[in-house]
């Protein structure tokens, strides 16, 4: 799958790309943006694939996102990569006329781009030549062929009536084995599950093949953002994935601030990181409670759920909202909590972390619980690399990338912390990572609150036309928000690449060949969100 060579090649730092690339590919020109640490690689239809494959396979770059834009009567395709070694970015930029609707696929090697290409094909009608599996992906069988909602001429506001045709979906191929049968799950299933569909093929015990179908919750966020004010789009950024609202709002604001070169005041920088960690803490506690529930450990689940509720209440006391909606704005924050409030946060975060430690200790000595998690839902390190997995799922399988650490954005340059990693890659490793990260979030909160700078919490943002990328380490992993504004300060393109989108891609790898009753447990240890994936 991955074409990575075994030998560690010499580092190709982002500052060096303008020297290296034109030598290898004379048609590729490079412009370096020293303030934002970006090498812009202008490629041609023939060089896009070799350049991307080289960045990913040999130069050690990670794939961040693929942004397709219909802009100025041209296709603009931007493949965003980042280098964990030199802490910089490579934007591989391809321009071609609108009439030219095919592009060479990179998804077979840069597997992380596979779903990005399928999504782009479905929504823009761009064909990725060489991609093995294009067609129905985001838009389901009811959606008419050939209508691509992300195209500029498609009107997002008007209800799009097409419900007359009720075609029935069937899996493209089925497993043929003695006694094999199909067990469909969803889209409406379980007590409080998000809407998603899994076609499980089994002979009774082992899941031979699992075919997930997502995007039941596709709300077209990227499309409905177009033409809106940034004020409105911030509401969307915060609300498309409520369980990690702050992280996504944060990435959106950072895109604005990068574009407009806004300096966020020190007080806001620190408090943003505090709130981001508060969200991570609550998020992980909720996932942990979910894992306990999936194994039927009722008391531990109740403890986890109580902790979650306590964190929600604490968040509301400090930020006025249980899920941190309405706290962020481009340039800083909308609220300035007073010293008493921050003391409360410090104290409670500490106390709650002690309770969390107790829960962890209890679970580690519950052999019947561990039996359900150990060696279940394995993700190997090669899968992390090939699928570009992110967040706790990747870190449980040896992947250490963490944008907080790599780019030390916001106040993360002020705190020193190690990124927890495990190598087993099973359900238990993921649980351990969640506990370690939650504890670390509590510790970062305490440390940052030791010394909160005085001053304003918001700087003025002077909007300008152009595009920029904002990123943040969301609770489930790296998130990338691409924002393009026009001269009238309206959003022209908003592209959201989320960790759930990335990690769901590999979910089937983790469940296949495990037994049927492991399914809910692997699902819980992945802890992914469909709202975040589907957008």
């Amino acid at each position: 799958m991955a074409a990575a060579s075994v030998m560690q090649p010499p580092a190709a730092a982002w500052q060096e790309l303008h020297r290296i690339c034109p030598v290898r590919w004379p048609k590729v020109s490079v412009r370096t943006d020293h303030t934002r640490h970006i090498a812009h690689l202008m490629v041609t239809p023939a060089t896009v694939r070799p350049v991307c494959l080289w960045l990913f396979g040999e130069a050690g770059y990670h794939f961040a996102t693929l942004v397709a834009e219909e802009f100025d009567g041209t296709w603009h395709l931007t493949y965003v990569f980042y280098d964990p070694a030199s802490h910089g970015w490579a934007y591989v930029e391809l321009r071609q006329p609108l009439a030219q609707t095919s592009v060479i696929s990179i998804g077979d090697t840069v597997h992380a781009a596979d779903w990005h290409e399928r999504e782009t094909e479905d929504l823009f009608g761009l064909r990725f030549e060489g991609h093995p599996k294009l067609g129905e992906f985001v838009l389901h069988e009811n959606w008419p062929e050939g209508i691509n909602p992300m195209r500029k001429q498609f009107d997002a506001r008007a209800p799009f009536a097409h419900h007359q045709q009720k075609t029935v979906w069937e899996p493209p191929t089925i497993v043929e084995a003695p006694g094999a049968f199909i067990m469909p799950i969803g889209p409406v299933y379980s007590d409080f599950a998000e809407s998603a569909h899994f076609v499980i093929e089994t002979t009774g015990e082992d899941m031979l093949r699992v075919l997930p179908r997502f995007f039941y919750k596709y709300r077209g966020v990227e499309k409905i953002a177009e033409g809106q004010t940034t004020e409105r789009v911030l509401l969307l950024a915060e609300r498309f994935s409520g369980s990690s609202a702050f992280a996504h709002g944060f990435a959106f604001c950072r895109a604005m601030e990068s574009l407009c070169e806004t300096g966020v005041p020190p007080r806001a920088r620190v408090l943003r990181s505090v709130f981001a960690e508060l969200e991570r803490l609550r998020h992980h506690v909720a996932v942990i409670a979910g894992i306990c529930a999936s194994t039927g450990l009722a008391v531990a689940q109740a403890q986890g759920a109580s902790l979650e509720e306590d964190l929600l209440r604490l968040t509301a006391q400090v930020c006025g909202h249980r899920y941190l909606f309405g706290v962020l704005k481009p340039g800083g924050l909308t609220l300035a909590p007073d010293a008493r409030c921050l003391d409360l946060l410090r104290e409670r975060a500490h106390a709650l972390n002690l309770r969390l430690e107790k829960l962890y200790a209890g679970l580690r000595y519950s052999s019947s619980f561990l039996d359900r998690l150990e060696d279940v839902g394995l993700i190997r390190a090669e899968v992390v690399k090939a699928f570009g997995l992110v967040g706790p799922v990747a870190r449980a399988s040896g992947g250490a990338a963490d944008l907080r650490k790599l780019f030390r954005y916001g106040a993360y340059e002020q705190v020193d912390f190690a990124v927890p990693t495990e190598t087993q890659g099973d359900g238990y490793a993921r649980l351990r990572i969640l506990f370690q990260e939650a504890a670390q979030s509590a510790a970062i909160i305490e440390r940052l609150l030791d010394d909160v700078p005085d001053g304003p919490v918001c700087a003025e943002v002077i909007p300008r036309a152009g595009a920029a990328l904002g990123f943040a380490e969301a609770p489930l992993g790296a998130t990338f928000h691409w924002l393009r504004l026009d001269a009238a300060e309206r959003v022209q393109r908003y592209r959201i690449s989320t960790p759930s989108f990335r990690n769901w891609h590999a979910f089937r790898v983790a469940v296949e060949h495990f037994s049927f009753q492991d399914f809910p447990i692997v699902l819980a240890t992945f802890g992914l969100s469909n709202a975040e994936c589907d957008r």
Partner: protein
Amino acid sequence: MFNWFYTGLKAGIRTTPYPKKADMAPGISPGRPRATRLDAQVAEALTMRCPTGALIKHQGGVDVDYRHCVHCARCRRNTGTQVMDWSQDYDWGVLSAHAERAGHRFRDIFGRSLHIRFLDAGACGACMSEARQLNNPYYNIHRLGFFITPTPRDADILLVAGPVTDAMRIPLQKTYAAMPEPKRVVAMGVCALSGGVFGPSFISAGGVADVIPVDVLVPGCPPPPLAILHGLLLAVERTMPSRLTTHAAETEA
């Protein structure tokens, strides 16, 4: 083996006294703006600030349309003027116009035991999370005779969150059809009430009532657990609708 039994006993009882008594624990509700007396200029300024058009200016001040308010707090912070009054309540449920017209009695049949099917019709995760809290020891809805059921065939109430995306329209209709009569539908969260920040659009309906009849509306973004509980109690006539019903109940459902 760790002794979970003992741990459970030691944790003691945390359950809210609601609905017997009000629960005033800090952070239990984000609160919401409520109709405020303001002079014309301030009213104008605040109405302009609201990104969802939830504030409605009238002669003596400003009213709130709870079908659209997303708790963004822009009318509460950094306005430089007087701000909207903020109520810390959570009894937010109101009856839809459809339910008021129908006037059916539900309490006689289901007064004490009730099965609820939750359905995610494109919710963001915050609504789902708040609904999930109903099962945690703080809220423990079992004590009130409410049970969450995984199958619509057992369900008396359908609790729906989300604006109803295109792909969830048919599953929602099917789930509703599979429920035995009598049944009621509780729509929770502004997305389910009006489409919220997402709908109506090319891919989302403008709320649940566009697809199936709705009986109880629980506004909020998201509604906190006690607001959802209030909506459920209201659906079986075990409580009274919210007093702050400005505009929310007037709309056809």
